[in-house]
């Protein structure tokens, strides 16, 4: 795999150099190495001489697409994993970005990121929107063969066991909000956690409030979560924060046959309706 990622890195650097050289973009958002650590960290390249800093590997854990929201009216290019291209689609569908200001360098056939359990059940491993692509595409068969059901054991538990599982997980939550800040589709001006009128929940880290926080955050993920694992990777306490949002992802697909972020014109699940939607779980 080492050579494969080396090849992708070279291609990215070439494209980046060309884009900056021709002045097509002012800034490239990509992955790079820290100066004092060999962790992969986001880098913002403005000067074409520094494109050699750009790279891609299976250690590229941070999620870049959300940074685009800080450059709404600048010409920016971004190296995007397939899940990041879905986030970009979500932004475009909610017209937060102008497509013409954006150049997307899609990573084809993403083999998954180290330590990210979402990549084990990823069902979109090729970019859904891009201007350039690097790496070899994965066929649909290959993609579906790589899917494993990460939350199978959780689904088979009865409600009581699941409740205890979540309580043990959320007990460690310190309300640092890294999951919310890392999540590509979590960008409200004022989050429900910060509003005291209306008052939704306490700001303490007792289990009652952390459980409520994750429940309330996850209901906002209905039809928006793209199951990318950014929340899980950001959590400093290694809490399984993705479990509830991934359920929203699966429920949206099973009940309403809906996959978020697949194309720029797509409306979000709860922003539209179908006259004969299923009424699963309603009283008869």
């Amino acid at each position, binding site marked *: 795999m080492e050579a494969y990622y080396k090849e992708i890195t070279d291609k990215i650097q070439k494209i980046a150099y060309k884009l900056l050289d021709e002045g097509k973009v002012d800034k490239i958002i990509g992955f790079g190495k820290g100066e004092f650590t060999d962790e992969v960290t986001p880098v913002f390249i403005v000067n074409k001489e520094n494109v050699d800093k750009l790279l891609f590997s299976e250690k590229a854990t941070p999620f870049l697409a959300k940074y685009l929201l800080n450059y709404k009216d600048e010409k920016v290019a971004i190296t995007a994993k397939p899940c990041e291209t879905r986030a970009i689609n979500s932004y475009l569908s909610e017209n937060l970005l102008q497509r013409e200001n954006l150049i997307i360098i899609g990573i084809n056939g993403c083999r998954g990121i180290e330590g990210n359990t979402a990549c084990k059940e990823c069902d979109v491993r090729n970019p859904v929107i891009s201007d350039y692509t690097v790496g070899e595409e994965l066929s649909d068969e290959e993609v579906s063969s790589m899917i494993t059901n990460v939350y199978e054991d959780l689904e088979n538990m009865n409600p009581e066991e699941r409740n*205890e599982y979540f309580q043990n997980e959320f007990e460690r939550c310190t309300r640092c909000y890294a999951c919310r800040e890392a999540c590509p589709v979590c960008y409200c001006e004022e989050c429900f956690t910060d509003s005291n009128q209306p008052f939704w929940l306490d700001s303490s880290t007792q289990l009652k409030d952390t459980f409520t926080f994750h429940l309330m955050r996850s*209901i906002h993920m*209905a039809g928006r979560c793209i199951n990318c694992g950014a929340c899980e990777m950001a959590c400093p306490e290694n809490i399984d924060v993705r479990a509830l949002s991934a359920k929203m992802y699966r429920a949206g697909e099973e009940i309403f046959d809906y996959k978020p972020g697949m194309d720029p014109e797509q409306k979000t699940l*709860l922003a539209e*309706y179908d006259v004969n939607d299923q009424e699963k*779980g*309603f009283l008869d």
Partner: protein
Amino acid sequence: MNNNENFEPKIVAYLCNWCSYAAADLAGSSRTQYPPNIRVIRVPCSGRIDPLLLIRAFNFGADGVLVSGCHPGDCHYLDGNYYARRRFVMLKELMTFAGIEEQRVNFTWCSASEGSRFGVVVKKVVDRVKEVGPWQGFDNKGFIGVDSSEEEGELTGGSIL
């Protein structure tokens, strides 16, 4: 110990002003008997209900929630209940997955003329919540609850005195 007979659940009921609230009115005026456990909150439309309201209700002492709106198709605001329907389906999926007993979260449609049906619905909701006992809070380790797949329906799980 904790017998379920004299447990009177507190249920927060969001009733849409044009249909279900009118149904409750009709039930009252036509003397249909239904248990007094619901605390009615009148809302313009079932589409007005923010799922956070239902989650928050459990932190403010509710044992169960009920949302009742107009039947799909005759919403006073045309499609308020259509939007609400998807929202509630997803909320129910989330809460049952998180381990909250599904009997505590109830959604239904009740038109203005269905006074007697409203009484039946409330009775059914109260029984369903009585089945699972008082709400122990999101922070109880193991709770008294009946898993709907249990036949004999006796209490399971760690008991909380």
